[in-house]
């Protein structure tokens, strides 16, 4: 049993479990699944600066902040107790491409060569982590949700605006991964 848990979980196990978050949150307290709003609540709590968009009672959304703190703990628990065996399969094409940029470490969830404190002070690392993070925060709020709020919760409730948002998430991702990221990685 433990051995099975320690293997990476296949999509047909993980996907339904992620989907079940929707009814669980609805049934334990009428909460609509969504994660990017937590970033907004942090703004409302810490840096409202009289911006109307952040002037609301964030304490009523405390559940959302606890939920994301739980995700953080979940990550720590997995590494501590349920960790995948080191090394994993990466598509051969991707491996070849990344090797061309000098990325050869595949033991971590994120490549050390890009995501490390040392790399933060390189142009490439700075763009990917700082500019990338900014786009995630700005874009999700502008779109009114992220993969959880739109692609999972919104589509679960058959919302057309969420389908539009999800399609454009994918369009943006395809453009970045295939056209722009190769340029950034070769910096």
């Amino acid at each position, binding site marked *: 049993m433990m051995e099975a848990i320690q293997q990476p979980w296949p*999509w047909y*196990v993980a996907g*339904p479990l992620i*989907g079940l*978050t929707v*009814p669980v949150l*609805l*049934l*334990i307290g009428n*909460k609509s699944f969504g994660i990017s709003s*937590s970033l*907004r609540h942090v*703004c409302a709590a810490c*840096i409202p600066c*009289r911006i109307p968009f952040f002037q609301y009672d964030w304490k009523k*959304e405390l559940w959302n902040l606890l939920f*994301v*703190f*739980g*995700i*953080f*703990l*979940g*990550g720590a628990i997995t*590494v501590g107790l*349920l960790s*995948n065996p080191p090394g*994993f399969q990466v598509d051969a094409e*991707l491996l070849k491409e990344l090797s061309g940029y000098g990325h050869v470490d595949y033991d971590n*969830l*994120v490549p050390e060569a*890009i995501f490390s404190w040392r790399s933060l002070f390189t142009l490439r690392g700075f763009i990917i*982590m*700082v*500019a990338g*993070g900014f*786009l*995630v925060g700005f874009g*999700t709020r*502008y*779109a*009114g949700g*992220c*993969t959880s709020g739109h*692609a*999972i*919760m919104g*589509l679960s409730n058959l919302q*057309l*605006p*969420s389908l539009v*948002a999800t399609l*454009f*998430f*994918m369009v943006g*991702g*395809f*453009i970045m991964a295939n056209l*722009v*990221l190769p340029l950034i990685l070769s910096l």
Partner: protein
Amino acid sequence: MKQQDSPDKSVDARSQDAMCFNQSALKHKWYHNVKYLVVGMLFGIVLVKAEVVNWFRIQEMFRLQSFHMYGVIGTAVVTGIVSVWLIKKFNVKTIYGEPVKIASKTFNKGQIYGGLIFGLGWAMTGACPGPLFAQIGTGSTVVVVTLLSAVVGTWVYGLVREKLPH
């Protein structure tokens, strides 16, 4: 400007452009929120075990090199659709006996422009907001920088939102 205290105004402001705001009218002690911590923890474990928080898996998805992410998102959506349909069909109540309420979304151009912008960031960082928290938990401490940058991005959106096309 003083913050409005009336409950309707508060819901109105919080729901603005957000999928997930508190729909419940019930008041609870703070510790009722602990159950969301537990659900978040389980969710975080699934994210890591499924390698959804893995930068390489996101790259494979956007390069059409692996079915994994499509399988995860696809089955998650189908599970969600069936669950919400069942809840509506059988009028399932919450554990507090409240009817389940889900807000409808109205279309605005933000879903196009914002969606594109988020997509660009998603493929760069290999993370959407959920995985950011999970990645930090797994020990990639530098992702704190990405998360803080995302908070700044959200804040800047709030600052300029009146000037943006919606």
